[in-house]
């Protein structure tokens, strides 16, 4: 390793140690400082534009610094952005609102920690809503990490509303069936019998011993299905089998990568039935759902960083294209 790089590594380590031990906690920019930061970022973009226009593309590491700074600094700003509710998110919320207390909701957590920044906020909001409105939640996962992510949502709901810790009882109000391998075959089997796929819950309690599952044998005994999905298996499989074959009303929360593929499922068919009632798409969908369920938390906080990041990518695309057109014109 070169001396310069070693020095840079030492400086970075020192920076983090200094931040840990000596920085104010938390760090909050005043509105003036926030505006100054935005102006400085804009000026930096002007510099990038001029250089690119002159044919000197900035290095990829400079682009990385821009992205990192634009993602990080908004955390310290005190702006809050208005969150407008999209029809897809509203549909999920309305469907949940229509469920009377005591209704059974099957919640499938089909994601891993890599997708948690997008899906965990909406899962937390959903769990808190379900507990506060008396919905009985049957948790399961088609991804191995799903049940653990679900448990984090349960703990988050209890942390946000400590009263729930006394009123909500495992086995009576919610149960975690755990994970089963088999992807869509798990859903298919559950169409006949939940017990066949999950003979015990996460804690090896026999299925028949769990009060919540007393009269639950398959999808026909469940009132609503909610799926938090980061890929395959996920929403598509749940729609194809649970919704289309077994007519379970389904709502979904997806990562933003997956969300565009779910839109065709939200159109009413000839029968007047939607394959998917609604969709919480990405972090923005999570923020909207948080607003509807009156839980202003992570996703809402992250929206400012998200907005900055989008602006940065758009600026880079515009700058690159302006340079491209100028070069094209010169060649002609």
């Amino acid at each position: 390793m070169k001396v310069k790089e070693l020095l840079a590594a030492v400086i970075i380590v020192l920076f983090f140690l200094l931040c840990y031990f000596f920085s104010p906690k938390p760090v909050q920019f005043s509105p003036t400082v926030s505006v100054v930061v935005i102006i400085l970022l804009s000026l930096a973009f002007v510099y990038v534009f001029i250089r690119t226009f002159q044919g000197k593309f900035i290095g990829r590491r400079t682009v990385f610094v821009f992205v990192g700074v634009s993602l990080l600094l908004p955390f310290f700003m005190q702006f809050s952005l208005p969150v407008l509710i999209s029809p897809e998110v509203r549909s999920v919320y309305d469907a949940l609102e229509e469920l009377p207390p005591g209704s059974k909701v099957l919640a499938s957590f089909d994601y891993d920690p890599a997708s948690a920044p997008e899906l965990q906020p909406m899962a937390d909001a959903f769990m808190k809503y379900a507990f506060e409105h008396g919905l009985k939640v049957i948790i399961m996962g088609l991804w191995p990490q799903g049940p653990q992510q679900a448990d984090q949502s349960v703990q988050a709901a209890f942390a946000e509303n400590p009263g729930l810790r006394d009123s909500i009882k495992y086995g009576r109000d919610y149960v975690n069936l755990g994970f089963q391998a088999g992807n869509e075959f798990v859903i298919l089997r559950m169409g006949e019998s939940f017990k066949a796929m999950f003979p015990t819950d996460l804690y090896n309690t026999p299925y028949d011993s769990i009060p919540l599952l007393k009269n639950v044998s398959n999808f026909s005994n469940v009132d609503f299905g909610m799926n938090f999905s980061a890929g395959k298996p996920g929403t598509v499989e749940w729609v194809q089998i649970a919704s289309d074959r077994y007519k379970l009303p389904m709502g979904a929360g997806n990562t933003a990568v997956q969300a565009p593929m779910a839109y065709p499922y939200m159109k009413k068919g000839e029968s007047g039935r939607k394959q998917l009632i609604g969709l919480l798409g990405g972090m923005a969908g999570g923020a909207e759902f948080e607003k509807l369920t009156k839980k202003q938390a992570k996703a809402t906080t992250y929206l400012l960083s998200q907005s900055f990041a989008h602006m940065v990518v758009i600026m880079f695309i515009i700058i690159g294209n302006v340079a491209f057109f100028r070069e094209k014109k010169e060649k002609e």
Partner: protein
Amino acid sequence: MKRELPLTIAFIAGIAFIIAYFIPHPPFNRFENWFSDWFAIIAAFAIWLGALNLMKISFIKIIRKKSDWLHAILIIISFVIILFFGFYEGYRGLHADPPFSFRDPGTSFDWIYVNVYTPLSATMFALLAFFVASASYRAFRARNLEATLLLLAAFFVMLGRVPVGDIITGWLPMEYQMSQWASWIMNVLNTAGQRAIMIGIALGLVSTSLRIILGLERAYMGGD
């Protein structure tokens, strides 16, 4: 037997699910249930195969002192550590009163999941944020009409899905603001394109599935 039996197995498995779809009554649904249960068990062994293959490759690297053999040692050590704690906590949880899961908060397995697996997994994917910005700057060009349409759609969606879009177009009536445009693009234009792709894939999948079930497609068996 090396080729005929697998083809027969594939045929029986495939046909069972097709028939059970149309006749979901005994005995056809019973075959579907059995096959689904077997699939779940075989899936576990398939994952084990991958993990054990990784260990086999790592051991070979160490024994033959190939490049990166030190990293292979690290892979094996990490694997063994989590395996130990996974089996230990699982066994302990089974025999505890009340029983607990090996994944419960407070267990060593959960500690490794939260403090080792989660940050590594999450950060690996998070790096893509930087690469997507760099790639957009260097390669995303409106060379023709189609590329321009792609760009414009991306702009509208990126601005419309965050509140900044509505702040920029706040002076317009509500129904013409950026979020409404993004919503219309997603619900109408995107839906049309996605539908075409979905239908095309579904039709292709049907023909490929038929070829597999009828034994015309044998690539999954590998060579002799």
